[in-house]
């Protein structure tokens, strides 16, 4: 399992990760079109991150009725075929990390795929607090 890990003690909630993510992959600034989400649920509370963990046998892939979500055999990362996704939301419900998002004006969902699984993850590079890092867990 390879995923972007989050350090709750370092995050200050600036949303730069979401801006860089949408800026890089959607060519617009829109935190609601980012593939990860940082939220503060309580008034003076801590921040929590919603980021895909790329589990080996993920629920989202199992419940996806169109085959839009799949595991890339080489990188073992859960990827999305945008044109196959009809936005039914089954995966959103099934995700234990609340890490799959819908946008009201877009059909397909958004989820982290580690910037395609390459060496550089835009959010990790940009985070001014070093609150994000790539973590590899042996399965």
């Amino acid at each position, binding site marked *: 399992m390879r995923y972007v890990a989050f350090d709750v003690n370092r995050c*200050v*909630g*600036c*949303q*730069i990760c979401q*801006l*860089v993510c949408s*800026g*890089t992959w*959607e*060519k*617009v*600034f*829109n*935190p*609601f*079109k980012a593939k990860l989400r940082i939220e503060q649920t309580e*008034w*003076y509370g*801590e921040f929590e991150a919603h980021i895909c963990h790329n589990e080996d046998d993920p629920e989202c892939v199992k419940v996806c009725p169109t085959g839009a979500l799949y595991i890339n055999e080489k990188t073992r990362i859960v990827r999305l075929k945008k044109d196959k996704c009809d936005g039914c939301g089954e995966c959103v419900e099934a995700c234990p990390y609340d890490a799959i998002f819908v*946008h*009201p*004006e877009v059909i397909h969902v958004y989820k982290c795929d580690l910037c395609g699984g390459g060496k550089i993850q*835009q959010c990790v*590079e*940009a985070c*001014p*607090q070093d609150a994000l890092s790539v973590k590899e867990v042996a399965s």
Partner: protein
Amino acid sequence: MKGYAGKITYVDLSSGKIWNDAVEEAFARKYLGGSGFATRVLFDRVPKGADPLGEMNAFILCTGPVSGTLAHGSGRGGIVTKSPLTDYFMDSYFGGEFAAALKQSGRDMLVILGKSSSPVFLFIDNDEVKLVPAEDLWGLSTKDVQDKIRERCGRYVSVVCCGPAGENLAPIACCISGRRAAGRGGTGAVLGSKNLKAIAVRGTKDVEVADIKGMIKFYHDKKENFLGLKALRELGTPFLVKFINEKGGLGTLNWQQESWEKAKNLYAEEFIQKHMLRSWACFACNMGGCTRVVRAISKSSTVTEGPEYETLFALGSNCGVDDRDKIIETDRLCDDYGIDTISYGGCIGFLMECYEKGLITKDDTGGIDFSFGNGDTLVQCTHLVAKREGIGNFIALGVKAMAEKIGRGAEKFACHIRGLEPPGHSARALKSMALGYAVSPRGGSHHDTRPGPEYQMDPEARAKTEGKAQIAYNTSNWAVIGDSMIVCHFCEGVYGVTLTENHVNLLKLVTGWDLSLKELTEIANRIHALKRSFNCREGLRRKDDRLPYRFMHERIPSGSSKGLGITPDELQRLLDEYYQLRGWDSEGIPTRETLNKLGLTDVEINA
């Protein structure tokens, strides 16, 4: 048009009419955004002599071309209105994420006109705009009303609201968004006067810029500039308590002195070590959270965001209070009630000196002890101001009105500039700030002229008037462009404390425009001329560009700026120089020639 949503929404609360105007490129190039856009609309919409708390005033929420983007410090939004505290132009800016939400809803600006006959809140859900009855929200604290609105409208809603102080039309009432304040000049009372409890926005649209790759690169290139601001990053604005105390410019005991032995109890390190829970950042700010959430140690266990430097000066040294818990409690109450901490601290400090000098007694205060240093008084009076009860009804009016009512020499130590209580940057220790306060469109604000350059000088250099008008001119040009782009003024560490190629480059990435530094300076001049024209139309003249009596007739008595001050003659010389730089006549009125040159041919001051 990249960088802009391209739309201004108008809401007339009197008629219930809601309409949109397109933002034309010519208008955008002329006024840039934020403060520039809003000043033009205020000038056109609010006639001479309009009652700030009446139907004719406008309440304008603005964003700039940079809002909602990755640019450093782009999380700020602005409120522009006519002030019930000064009766002149006012703009007040606030952090958080509201500006990004408004931009993402597809609007550059929201203009509220008229007055609702019953309490309402405005809900903007992308394209949809509606007024919602708010009888059940009236009277709620700024925190509670935001919680309730989120329960009703969804969690991804950003809110600007007033508290009970605004509802009760206290001229020192502020607006709150999230936990950040648009503090100055009574914007909360303007909202209250319109029977408008809050504006809630949900925006999920894209913010498009001319060169997105370039912007991400710009972010990475400039990231280190912010990371280099070590003090601000690690300690937040409270690092200034020590810095300014050591400079000898920390307003203490209603500015009777400007350095304070007990200030060490208010140093940032004390809060970090004993009270801090966590840091918090505004939208798109990579400072690392210059705001800290802190908790009182005492039984109250009050949690608040802040207190920022200005609050520590106003409630702390200015009132002689070094009890951190009392300041934390008061800060939170001010936020909940929607009271500006700078004006509130200015008012309490002033009354404390009146009490010390015997001009008021317990008979006047309802039995409350107004001795300097009394932290309980600080806490207690927030309730009274919000409810406009007892002495609180008096405090709510601000220092200028209180001094006029008390009389008997009280005006000689009434510290305000055109009704606005000054922040914690000394007019006597920093000559450019002295001039800056005198000519500020807002009055006692540190966000027109900026104090940075003079803090770098030794007392001898600070004592001189030479070059200070130029500093005031240069820094206020950056400040007004910063307020129009809109970026946080703490970005001075990234972009510069005067206009630089950084501002030009950032605007090019966002809008695609090839503006030169000269053209950007002309826009700054234009917006300043328009703000000044608004005030001159209201009757402002050279005689009103003055400083508190104390600042001009008493020298700083102790500390490292001992002996510094500003004489009336020095101020007059600085005014002459500044007016000349701006192209204003000897009365401080922008000349016809200046207005025409800036493309403001339709601006009439004597209309």
